[in-house]
């Protein structure tokens, strides 16, 4: 009953409050339904836990399904733990796990490994010690160093009671020797600590969060606590509730998850939702500025409302390349929608390669395949589409996309690919991030229907404080923007420029003044007055 209640809470927690976390996890892997994929995973130490973890995470593609999968996993975890400790106490490791999973780099393989270790103990606790000579290496190979949970439970508990059996010390020594041999011989392509603590529980190498040790320790030690009175059970429940509150409060960093939420909405093309959320709260960083600006552009509001939202500076439309798997997501999406196909592909490729545990990304691979299709690189596109066809949730899309390969007319008339083909650059030259306003202008100049490029160009001139350029090219907006009147944002910027930045209530003036202050503090005395540059 408690497991069911836990599962319901977990389902609501993920589905209602953190669907973006599911999307984030899913986009950092690409699970393939192929024999090769299975063999590749299980041929590594801890590989079965990896495989099962990735298998489960693939379902996060559909939020409710993902939340249901996690709920079931937690219910199983609780049931298994209830077999080795009191059912109320078993809630404590579950809640700690929920806390730990607030760290977006925790991998599902960690959860799977603990469950397998505890379940194995439950299943084999009454068997002979001699069986462990075989079980331990097999379990170690399948789930990695978390097997120590199994070994220590075997050492510490007999007939449901704490009773250290000296014979089992030999078993622990056996496990230790085996572990060291594996670290030295089989895992020599890893730093020593990674090899010791597990290479597949956490996405970031050389980082070993305390919770990675605390949770297994709790699982091993908590069965010591015997609950014989009802009130004690209530105390355990209360502790679990308090920990649950702490998990949500301290484990899930508000701003981080707000940004992940923005990306989740962008991924699903929910542009208006991005704007609505930003109207209530916006994290003051470039990632958020880019997300909101892209959403404004996609809904035809960029010219009017850009500066009514937080703008981080010159990087508020497009960010320079960052070497991680998240920062450049809005830039990548913006490039794609603008028709800057090569840049979209570059960012998507590097985002994928920045996934620190070496996994591919279904979302990025799909985008790379789209870029290849748009650019007519059909052989390469086919390679990606064939891989995506081996997945559960990208398969249908990939199969359909494959029918387009080589069919120029079909692609030209495709809603998105055809539009991007028409919008992309006509000439070839080298991209320059510092001159991105020029990049936007050339893009627009190649196709004056590309209103988004025009708005990005004018927006970038304003972000740069290049008001001369803005004024010079504003007539383009009147001519090609398709506006019935000059958008409010441009009017505001114009008036602000005319008033030399001294325009109370002006959104652009607020931006300029903020930038000037930032510039002053950053350059220690160098004037930022040149921000408004006639």
């Amino acid at each position: 009953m408690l497991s069911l209640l836990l599962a319901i809470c977990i389902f609501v927690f993920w589905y209602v409050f953190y669907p973006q976390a599911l999307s984030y996890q899913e986009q950092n892997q690409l699970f393939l339904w192929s024999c090769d994929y299975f063999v590749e995973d299980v041929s590594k130490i801890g590989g079965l836990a990896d495989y099962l973890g990735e298998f489960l995470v693939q379902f996060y593609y559909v939020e409710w399904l993902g939340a249901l999968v996690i709920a079931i996993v937690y219910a199983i975890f609780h049931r298994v733990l209830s077999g080795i400790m009191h059912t109320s106490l078993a809630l404590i490791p579950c809640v700690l796990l929920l806390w730990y999973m607030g760290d977006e780099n925790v991998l599902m393989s960690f959860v799977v490994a603990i469950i397998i270790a505890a379940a194995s103990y439950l299943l084999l606790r009454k068997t002979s010690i001699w069986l462990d000579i075989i079980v331990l290496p097999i379990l170690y190979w399948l789930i990695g160093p978390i097997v120590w949970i199994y070994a220590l439970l075997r050492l510490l508990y007999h007939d449901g009671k704490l009773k250290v059996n000296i014979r089992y010390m030999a078993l622990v020594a056996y496990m230790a020797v085996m572990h060291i041999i594996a670290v030295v011989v089989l895992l020599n392509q890893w730093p020593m600590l990674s090899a010791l603590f597990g290479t597949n529980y956490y996405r970031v190498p050389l980082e070993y969060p305390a919770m990675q040790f605390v949770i297994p320790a709790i699982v091993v030690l908590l069965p010591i606590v015997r609950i014989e009175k009802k009130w004690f059970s209530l105390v355990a429940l209360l502790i679990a509730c308090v920990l649950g509150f702490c998990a949500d409060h301290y484990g899930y960093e508000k701003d981080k998850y707000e940004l992940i939420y923005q990306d989740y909405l962008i991924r699903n093309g929910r542009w208006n939702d991005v704007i609505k959320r930003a109207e209530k709260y916006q994290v003051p960083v470039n990632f958020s500025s880019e997300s909101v600006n892209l959403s404004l552009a996609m809904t035809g509001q960029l010219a009017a409302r850009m500066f009514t939202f937080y703008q981080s500076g010159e990087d508020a439309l497009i960010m320079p390349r960052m070497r991680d798997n998240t920062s450049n997501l809005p830039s990548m999406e913006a490039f794609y929608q603008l028709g800057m196909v090569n840049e979209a592909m570059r960012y998507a490729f590097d985002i994928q390669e920045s996934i620190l545990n070496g996994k591919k990304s279904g979302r990025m691979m799909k985008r790379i395949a789209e870029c290849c299709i748009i650019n007519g690189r059909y052989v390469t596109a086919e390679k990606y589409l064939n891989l995506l066809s081996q997945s559960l949730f990208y398969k249908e899309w990939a199969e359909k996309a494959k029918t387009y390969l080589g069919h120029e007319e079909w692609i030209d008339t495709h809603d998105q690919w055809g539009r991007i083909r028409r919008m992309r650059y006509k000439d070839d030259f080298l991209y320059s991030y510092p001159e991105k306003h020029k990049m936007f202008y050339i893009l627009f100049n190649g196709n004056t229907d590309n209103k988004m490029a025009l708005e990005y160009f004018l927006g970038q001139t304003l972000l740069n404080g290049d008001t001369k350029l803005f004024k010079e090219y504003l007539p383009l907006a009147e001519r090609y923007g398709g506006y019935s009147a000059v958008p409010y944002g441009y009017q505001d910027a114009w008036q602000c420029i005319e008033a030399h930045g001294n325009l109370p209530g002006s959104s652009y003036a607020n931006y300029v003044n903020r930038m000037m202050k930032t510039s002053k503090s950053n350059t220690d005395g160098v004037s930022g007055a040149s921000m408004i540059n006639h």
Partner: protein
Amino acid sequence: MNKIYNILGCLSLFVCLVACTKQVTDPQMQITKPSIFPDYVGVTIPADIAPMNFSMAGDEFECIDVVVSGSIKGEMHVQGDYADFDIDEWHELTRDNKGGKLTFTVSALKDGAWLQYKPFDMMVSPYSLDDYGLTYRLIAPGYEVGGDIGIYQRDLHTFDESKILHESAVPGQCMNCHTANRGSADEFLIHVRGTKGGTVVQQNGEQTWLNTKTDSTKANMGYSYWHPSGRYIASSINSIHQSFFVGKDRRIEVFDTMSDVLVYDVRTNQLLLNPLLQTSDWETYPVFSADGKTLYYCTSKPYNVPAEYDKPRYSLCKISFDPEKGTYGDRVDTLLKSYEPLGDRDSVSYTYPRPSYDGKWLMYGVTDFGNFPVNHKEADLWLMDLKTGATRSLTEVNSDDVDSFHNWSTNSHWFVFSTRRSDGMYTTLMLSSLDDNGKATKPFLLPQRNPKKFYHECLWSYNCPDFTKDKVKFDARKASEKCLDGERKQVTIR
């Protein structure tokens, strides 16, 4: 782990074989040779190479039946989803027919009917390839992030591949080519780039981690090449950058904003500089001649890159080198002038010279401009006869796409190079042999157990290939520790 993978692979193959064992009955004779992947029709292979497995190029075939007959002796017969030859039997057949040829009769089952194609030949070269295999870097053909990069070695006589150094051992760092002294398995260097960067030189099983940047040199050692004696390493020092095209046909241009050439004395831990090699021009890709008495390199006038990215054109030069004293000659000779016409081009760029170890040939790359041929569709391999100075394009091996980055086998009768001919994006490796007259044979794609599946799904580019005489033994754990602790032996200037 590789063995487990192989065992499971064999099991699945067994299942496939069981599923496809049929008699070739009443085949419809075809007048053409079969269209197979990889295109092994008419290639020349060394005896003892890994089995040259292949599939029908199209996906419409249910089964393939292959009979291989040796011109001198022996026969093999396989049937399955693809032609998968037993390694031992294959080796025996190729050994028995060294200097002869193998004739392949291919039948393929399509819509329940067998089609039998005109037989094709595969020549077995009289030149052996005794090296253990190849070393190369596997990297996603990305842009600025190395990702899950690694340096690997591959047994050319089987399908065994193993890691020499993987990114997992040095997290967050990038690694450049494994550069060995004439295919030595125990005399090589690897550059590691990143916050914990450095150059590891391994000799006699000992790793030495170097900081190769000094106050007098503007960057770390880059493209390197060993002196045959093992005492010196010629190297460029480059400031390498890349820019990205916005159009649909090209992706990346890599260029230097400065580069010089120098020699590192391994014994004294000193850099040997010379004003002729540290000019305001750009010098790069130094290599020693087979006798170690000449240093070849490429040089270009400097330009304002990236704005003038298509201007630099590299000439091929040489300067003498005295290995006894570690000194250079006082004159630079230009062997190939970039500003002179080549065919229908007014000027070209010469890059990546590689002298054969027998001293007869110099193989190099030719592109329209720049020094990084792997991104140049027009990049081709050329060959110079070092006795006569005569040059020619290696049309036997070149393709319409990138052909670049080559290295010689230790007996100088085989060479490996990377190419993007398969899809224009992923580099693969091809091998070819060269006879005593400098005539190359049709190259063949590096064999894989199931090549069609492998290459069609492979998300790696093969980079900087070279031969290795024996299996490289490298302590990756030790390298990991040394790399991450950041301690480096500082090189000095002589």
